[in-house]
């Protein structure tokens, strides 16, 4: 049952065939390219097979039938046939529990690489009846959640999808499944809403560039005095400017320490590509920059970003922070590859 496409496990040969012919699989399973807007799971897209319990139920029916014939029990026949009817009705009801649900994707808040993107799906019942116990599962990550979808109104599903790399993370394919009401059948449907989540570079903590960096980079000098007030020492981080290294302390303790200054909060600083340690790769540089952005935002500074070909004037606040991080996330971003294009 762990395999999201467990049907294939049941049909190894078909599975092997479908593996070789993805287009056939797409046609059979109703895989579609990412769909915009509200996706309604029409009956054509709802698949149904007996679950394991269904087979056991069938075996029970067979036993009952044989018993009824053997002992010529009229009510035994009635019972057997009522249960058979129940199985039939259960099948239709299971498909109905899923069919014509309207799926739409909500906004996914940006995350940093290494975290999990929280994709929101809204399952709108659009029916006179409620739809209990519907499982939504993200196929690539296995992230899943069971919700009861009301008849009118929507249920929210949050799928946590690990974001490995910066850039746009598409949601990829999700599966909706239900076994309600009797658990004898398993109906499922695939849906791939056109949703994506912005993934910022994984921030790497390091000391902010020193004041002098601003001068060098030609930034506006902050009018606030006392910028250079010495505040203390902290451990050296690779991105620290050599000017801030407390060389005396290093000589004394053999430990790389960096001087820290108060008043940086009030400063206006440029987070400049060129301030990064030379030799670091692109991703590393972006990570360091992201760390700076967070530190600057936390410190309350006004900061701007300067990348080759990109410049964002200084500012502060959530919107500004988001814009800067987005620029970092999308800077020469690798083409977004859908998480699960092939089944």
């Amino acid at each position, binding site marked *: 049952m762990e395999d999201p496409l467990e049907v294939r496990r049941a049909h190894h040969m078909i599975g092997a065939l479908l593996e070789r012919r993805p287009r056939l699989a797409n046609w059979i399973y109703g895989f579609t390219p990412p769909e915009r807007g509200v996706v309604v799971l029409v009956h054509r897209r709802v698949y149904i097979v007996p*679950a394991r319990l269904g087979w056991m139920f069938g075996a029970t029916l067979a036993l009952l039938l044989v018993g009824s014939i053997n002992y010529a029990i009229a009510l035994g026949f009635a*019972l057997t046939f009522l249960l058979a009817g129940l199985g039939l*009705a259960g099948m239709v009801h299971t498909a109905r529990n899923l069919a014509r649900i309207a799926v739409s994707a909500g906004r996914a808040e940006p995350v940093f690489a290494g975290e999990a993107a929280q994709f929101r799906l809204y399952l709108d019942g659009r029916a006179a009846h409620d739809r209990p116990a519907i499982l939504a599962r993200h196929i690539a990550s296995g992230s899943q959640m069971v919700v009861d979808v009301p008849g009118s109104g929507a249920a929210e599903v949050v799928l946590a999808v690990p974001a490995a790399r910066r850039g746009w993370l598409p949601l990829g394919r999700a599966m909706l499944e239900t076994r309600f009401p009797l658990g004898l059948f398993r109906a499922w449907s695939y849906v791939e809403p056109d949703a994506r989540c912005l993934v910022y570079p994984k921030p790497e903590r390091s000391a902010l560039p020193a004041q002098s960096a601003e001068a060098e980079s030609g930034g506006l000098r902050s009018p606030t005095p006392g910028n250079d007030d010495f505040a203390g020492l902290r451990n050296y981080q690779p991105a620290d400017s050599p000017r801030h290294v407390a060389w005396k302390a290093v000589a004394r303790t053999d430990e790389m320490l960096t001087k820290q200054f108060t008043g940086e909060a009030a400063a206006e600083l440029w987070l400049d590509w060129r301030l990064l340690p030379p030799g670091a790769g692109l991703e590393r540089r972006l990570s360091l920059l992201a760390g700076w952005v967070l530190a600057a935002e936390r410190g309350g500074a006004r900061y701007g970003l300067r990348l080759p070909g990109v410049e964002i004037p200084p500012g502060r606040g959530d919107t500004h922070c988001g814009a800067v991080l987005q620029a970092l996330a999308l800077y020469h971003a690798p083409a977004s590859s859908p998480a699960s294009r092939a089944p």
Partner: protein
Amino acid sequence: MTTVAAHPLAPEARSVGVRDLAWLIGSLLLVAAPHALRAPWWLTLLTLCLFAWRFRYSLNRAPLPARWLVIGVAALAMLGVWMEYRTLFGRGPGIILLVLFAGLKLLETRTHRDAAVAAFLGYFLIITNFLYTQSIPTAALMGAALFALTATLIGFSAPQRSLRANLRTTGLLLAHAAPAALVLFLLFPRVQGPLWGLPQDAYTGMTGLSESMSPGNLSSLAQSDAIAFRAEFEGGPPPHAQRYWRGPVLWDFDGRTWTVMPVLLKTFAPPQGGERYRYDILLEPHNRPWLFALESAASLPDRSRMTRDGQLLALAPVRARLRYEASSIVDPDADAQEDARLLLRGRRLPAGTNPRATALAAEWRAASASDSEVLARAIGFLREGRYTYTLEPPLLGVHTVDDFLFGTKEGFCEHFSSAFVFLMRAAGLPARVVTGYQGGELNSVDRIITVRQSDAHAWAEVFLAGRGWVRVDPTAAAVPGRVEMGLARAVPQTEGLSLMMREPLEWLRGARDRWEALAHRWNVWVLGYNPERQRDLMSLVGMRDADWRSLTATLFTVLGLMTLLLLAWSLGRLVRPDPVQRAWRAFCRKLAARGVERSLHEGPRDYASRAARALPASRRAILRIGVQYIRLRYGARASRPGMARLRRMVRELRLT
């Protein structure tokens, strides 16, 4: 496919909650309840303990008992069943074991999968009840159990859902299952069972006449209120005194017991003359081959034969309720032919028994000029003899006939017929004992005659030259009330007749008549539905000689159509948007036809004002529709008149 997480809908991954378990135990109790009447008390107690034990574990959220403990209890229980029944097989012990296993299964039920298996076992236990009785009350109880089990299964699928919603779903599912069940019941090709040998005890508890008659066995049968068969006449039935339902004919007498002779068949030649009656008989199973018909049978029911002594036989013992058509002629023309060897057999008596009766018969013989005169003397002797008719006759000695005729003078019909046939044979007349039923009660509601075991009777037949076998009812001669009015008025009220047979409870009998009319219809239409009735039904709808192939084809066609209907229903309910939305879409279509198409992002207000600008002629109407739609769609509540107004406005919108 990186992470492998447990499937949250897979039943093996979901643990059973207290509510699930309570429902499961409740419905299993409902299923097993009737078995408590038949099981030894300690087994009932043990089963209840098992249920309670499991439920306590659930309440305490404790881990379930170790496997060895469960296996130990199972072994002990099986030992107990063996001690009780001396076997583990057969119907009784087998069913008891199944009930026990249901309790034991619960003890190792952790997940929904186990619980569902227990529920399936519950479904199976329902049918075990039907092995004992298929009456309406049992069916009603088992219907309730079926509902509860189904609700339990639904509860497993949606443990968080409200009980009410789950019960509603159960009702809906069963309502949808019912038509399919009906079609399957009517059309599923029926085969006559059994498919293999049944356990030995499968047919215990069926009562009825037997191959022999000795003093006391008919009178004990007569105290049973159980139904032997029912007869439904096409016209009116013959009067009570003429309703002799012929059963086994007894020839051989050993001084105490009368027994049947080996079966001798004859080619059936219907009797002539008399008054003809046509009727259907619904015979309760009695585990013997004989069929009952009013004397004298004028036709052979399907798949039956007739013996030399006029007894109808089925091809096999009647082990299921059997319905057959019969016709009879009361008072047919005489048939004076009989095989000489049979006449010889009809005179045979055990030597040296009942000397007084033998002497009396010889006296009659000597004093009479003809056989008829002997007969008349014998009848007169019984009539004058001040005999008492009783269900509790005193015990008789070695010379049973002498003791009864001259000693105790108290007896039941077996005493009268036995003594009478003895006297006839002793006088040299061929005679035989006929057992069967006499009378039967006419139901005032459905005009069906119900014949009970208490109507069991024995009479005599005497062979007279030129007239053939003549029926003589010595009981009627001695106690006329028995045959005229039935047993209840012939026997003193203090004797052990069943409650219903006593006189003053007439109102109770009226209620019973209605109930039995219902039960009869149930027996005929539900329980009596068999391959023959299926054929009848099929020929009624124009399919003559329906074999299993055409039945299967019809069945699948109808079932397929019904599934499609159900599917259409499920689609219809879903596709239909609410009336406000429908009206709005109609409005959009109207505008789109005039070239003002709504784009996806456009809200109703923007769209309406844009349309109003584009179609200034209908500006006011369009804007009003827009406002009304917004009020209904997004307002606090939608009123019915408001919806009607919107629909009217959209309908009346004329775009020029």
